[in-house]
């Protein structure tokens, strides 16, 4: 998708937090990335290294928690697991699904010095 600009976004958040929380080095960055977020993990890892270069997070290790996608099936009245937005309910094959998680794109925590 646009992993480079996502990393720019991550860096902005880190720099703002660095000022607020008074840290000068980031050792680890933990992200929550949903499988429906459209983020290509390998591209994100590549871009991360490039974008963090020369910043407080230059040496940071990137840890990504991949969040599974869940949806509420209107017909079964149950929460079901899906892999794609266009998936049918695995139980009843209805497409009346309301995605409830899996589109996360957030910075969970930072390990800092």
């Amino acid at each position, binding site marked *: 998708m646009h992993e480079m600009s996502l990393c720019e976004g991550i860096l902005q958040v880190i720099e703002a937090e660095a000022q607020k929380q008074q840290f000068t080095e980031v050792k680890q960055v933990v992200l929550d990335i949903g499988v429906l977020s459209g983020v290509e993990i390998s591209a994100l890892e590549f871009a991360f290294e490039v974008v963090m270069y020369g910043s407080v997070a230059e040496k940071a290790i990137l840890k990504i928690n991949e969040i599974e996608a869940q949806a509420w099936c209107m017909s079964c009245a149950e929460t079901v697991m899906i892999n794609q*937005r266009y998936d049918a309910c695995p139980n009843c094959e209805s497409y009346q699904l309301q995605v409830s998680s899996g589109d996360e794109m957030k*910075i969970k925590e930072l390990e800092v010095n």
Partner: protein
Amino acid sequence: MCTTCGCGSGEVQIEGHDHHHHGGRQDIHYGTGPAHAHAPGLSQSRMVEIEKSILGKNDEYAQENRRYFTDNGILTLNLVSSPGSGKTTLLTRTINDLKENLSLSVIEGDQQTTHDAERIRETGVSAVQINTGKGCHLDAHMVGHAMENLSPEKGSVLFVENVGNLVCPAAFDLGEAHKVVILSVTEGEDKPLKYPDMFFAADIMLLNKIDLLPYLEFEVAKCIEYARRVNPDIQVLQVSATSGEGLEDWYEWIKTTRQTRLIGRSDILSKENNLQKLVSV
């Protein structure tokens, strides 16, 4: 390429917007002052809970834009599609057909050239071109800046023609009321499945170039079914910007959506009623 502020990279150009200053990144120097000095061995590493959206900055700008649009009763439609779906043709036709009755303006997003904004200006409606340079989408910050040059009227309709791309613009909220996805029948009916994020993010799909259906193997019903698999709520209108077929429905949708959002806004509506009275006299 910067997500929330195109200014840093020097790639983004907004017509009529030469420069501006940010107190952001360039002002922060870590470890230069004594208070920021990092003494090795003294500090222990700690975990800091952040829980912040990666696109949080964009979302903040989008909320600012949205507040402005709501305060001024402006209906903003974010037009998204792949390149060549006929977005600009549809938009110029829409403008020509509606400009007598509605106040309209346009923000045009493209990587390069001001061709599209020029096409829009030929209709007599004001337009601002944003060139994203290498960027693949418009973001809320660029739109905020474009507004400074455009200043749309209260109660007007603002069209934002996003960069032709069915992937990235899905993730970037611009503060719009609705994303309108345009799909042309020359593209294949399975586009909603191939690019589900965009069809999920949109509230309405315009199936364009339906005048070409006799020459193509395109199953309209299947395409709509695919779109609804991804987004059960999506509204679908079949149109042709060339023949004019179905455009009345699209115009009706714009007018009704605008009207619904203006319910209770007597400050804007009473002015319009007065104007109409003047015209009828």
